[in-house]
């Protein structure tokens, strides 16, 4: 077990040096700030817009990280032949694969937490710059109306709100959402759900990386991701196909029958990533819930995919 951890930590070290990670993180910060801007354009419910955009951005960017960092993971070891001295050590091949997977998962976890933290900071800053907060902080109510508190107060306010946001965000993330105000409620939960989704996607990235070139792996992982997200709708599409012909399967055209079979098969086998999607509830500040079966599905499915990767890896000849 400690050997798996050793590989995992080393993988983490390796992944952290990947430049694309920082590019994606940079973009995520841009998008999160952009969410703030977009919310100001919305005449109704700016809260919903900013939360929507933020949570969606974190989801997409973490997926991109999983793909771009994951595709080179095992492939690089094989291509650069660094694997020779590792496999010749008393470590089984499956331990190697699992270690790589866990290392990648750890990397993504850290990144998701960083993005969540940035998002919390943005939200807190946004709140600090609403008219009410500024009014309250920079003006005092006297009998003759509102009196500004002076330029020193403004400076102080900017500084305190900036650092305050940073620490509030940090507190939110580190306490796993236990310490959270109304504006950041539910975000940690969303990020944890995203992590479950990433567990599955990462597993696929590792799987494809173990036998395919990075470009092809990226392509295939992206397809899996798309099918996973559109899974439920795919299934619903098949139902509406049936509905359009009045419910009987025989009435479908041959081409539609094919579509039906394919869609049914794909939606059952492919991972269902929609169950981890509660973004609409998060946007509306509604109560989030987690079915233990959902967590189990995520864990079991990713374990299964990693097992397949290990099996393939077991029989590989290393050039």
């Amino acid at each position, binding site marked *: 077990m400690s050997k798996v951890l050793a590989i995992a930590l080393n993988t983490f070290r390796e992944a952290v040096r990947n430049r694309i990670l920082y590019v994606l993180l940079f973009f995520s910060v841009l998008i999160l700030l952009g969410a703030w801007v*977009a919310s100001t354009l919305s005449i109704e419910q700016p809260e919903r817009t900013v939360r*929507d955009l933020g949570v969606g951005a974190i989801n997409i960017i973490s997926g991109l990280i999983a793909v771009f960092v994951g595709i080179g993971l095992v492939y690089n070891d094989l291509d650069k032949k660094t694997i020779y001295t590792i496999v010749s050590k008393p470590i089984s091949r499956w331990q190697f694969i699992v270690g790589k997977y866990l290392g990648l998962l750890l990397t993504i976890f850290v990144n998701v937490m960083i993005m969540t933290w940035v998002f919390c900071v943005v939200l807190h800053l946004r709140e600090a710059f609403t008219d009410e907060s500024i009014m309250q902080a920079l003006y005092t109510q006297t009998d003759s109306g509102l009196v500004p508190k002076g330029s020193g107060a403004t400076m102080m306010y900017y500084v305190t709100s900036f650092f305050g946001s940073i620490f509030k965000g940090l507190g939110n993330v580190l306490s796993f959402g236990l310490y959270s105000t109304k504006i950041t409620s539910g975000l940690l939960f969303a990020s944890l759900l995203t992590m479950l989704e990433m567990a599955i996607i990462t597993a696929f990235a590792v799987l494809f990386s173990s036998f395919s070139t990075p470009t092809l792996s990226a392509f295939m992982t992206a397809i899996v991701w798309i099918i996973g997200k559109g899974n439920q709708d795919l299934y*619903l599409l098949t139902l509406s196909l049936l509905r359009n012909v009045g419910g009987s399967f025989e009435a479908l055209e041959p081409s539609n029958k094919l579509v039906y079979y394919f869609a049914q098969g794909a939606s059952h086998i492919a991972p269902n990533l929609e169950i981890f999607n509660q*973004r609409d509830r998060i946007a509306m500040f509604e109560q989030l819930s987690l079915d233990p079966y959902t967590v189990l599905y995520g864990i079991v499915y990713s374990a299964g995919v990693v097992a397949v990767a290990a099996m393939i890896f077991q029989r590989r000849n290393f050039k």
Partner: protein
Amino acid sequence: MTQIRDRVAMAIQGVIMVCALTFAVTFQKKHFDEMDLRPELFTQKLRLPNSEVLKTATLGFRNLYVDFMFLRAIQAYGAGWLKPGESREPIYQYFSTVAEVDPQFVPIYRFGNLIVSDQGGDGERGQKLLRQGILANPNSWDLAYLGIYNAIWNMNDPEDARWFLAMAQKMRDVPGYVLRMEEYVERRLGRYESAFDVNVDYFIRYQRAGNETERMLLYNRFYDILEKWSLRIIHTGIEDYIAAEGGHPLKMEDVVKPEYLGEYEMPLIELLEKSADEMAMSDLPLEEAVEYVRKNSRTKMFGLPVEPRGTWFYINSDMFNSVMAQDIPTTATAEQRFAYVVTPITFFPRVDQHTHLIEMNYLRPAMGPNMDQEVPPEVYERWLTPDPIGGHYVWDPSIPRFYSTARVRLGKGQDPRCQITGYGPFPLPLEPTLLDYDSDRAWALEKGIYDANGTRLIWNIEDSMP
């Protein structure tokens, strides 16, 4: 040698590149210039695929997509995408489809209704959107309220309003003013009985809750209901009169006869107040108290209905002439056909000759007058200033302003015709004239409007102007 060859080769490559670029840019420019930039194209951009497809295509980022489409709609609205005369169907479809992708996003329906119905004038499609929104969000009372508003003001369809009202009544956390629209709907539907009953319910509730402001607001509603109720009775009587006599009645006294205005039951304001006060003292449960007040506000009456605000109903001759001149068809509403039935309070502001006279005869260029005080009494004294309800205007230097003698009498309830009811005989003719009171008659005789026999001499007041 090779150096020169190399340089020539590079130069040729450079030339080819520049030519290609220039060609490409020129071609594009020509293409864009000839491109069809008709505004209809923008409307075509509104066409979205089926919402099922959209739901799948957005891969779980539905609310993000809807947010973007919503922002886009806001910006397009700012850029002005509504052209008069165009069908609102594409815009309606746009909102409807986007709403289907995320049905719980209520602002879509609100904003869509704003664009389609309020700005675009297509109330029907606006209602369709609101209905779609309510069905997806069973507790969106704001949409129900907009539906009621639309139905009554834009569509003039009280039945449609009833649907929205019924939905609102089932919703959670509906604020009072939405539910009170019921009374207004009932009123618009001509169901004054239920409108009155509904209002009593709220009245007692507010009384019990100690909510004085709301309670006072409701009084206006009561006045309005009872006035319309009374008018309906009078109009029915006039219909009977026309059926029997073949023409319109010239005076209210002609209609106030047992064969035209029989017996009926109606609430009276004093009875309402009395029973409400009784209920204020008792500890009957709410429903029973409301029932009691409802029953005990009503009383049996006959003849001329009571005017709830304290004056009385009569037929105004000038209005009568103008209504007859308009030749209103019999399919029009009773309010339109019998618009000559008025009360002094409703009639007074409509035909306030006073302001009209001043505006016509004493306006100084760009200066006014803005107030009565600005007209010097000596100028004023020369004019004939009867008011529309049988009095005349007098200058009161203590205030200082002009006041109408009849208005003052009405305000103090000193006219014997106030709150009059029954078949008569009435102490004074129901249509007020300058001959009703001595002071007014003396003034009229002095000004030569009437002669000693009561014949009207001057019809056109403007003829008295210098």
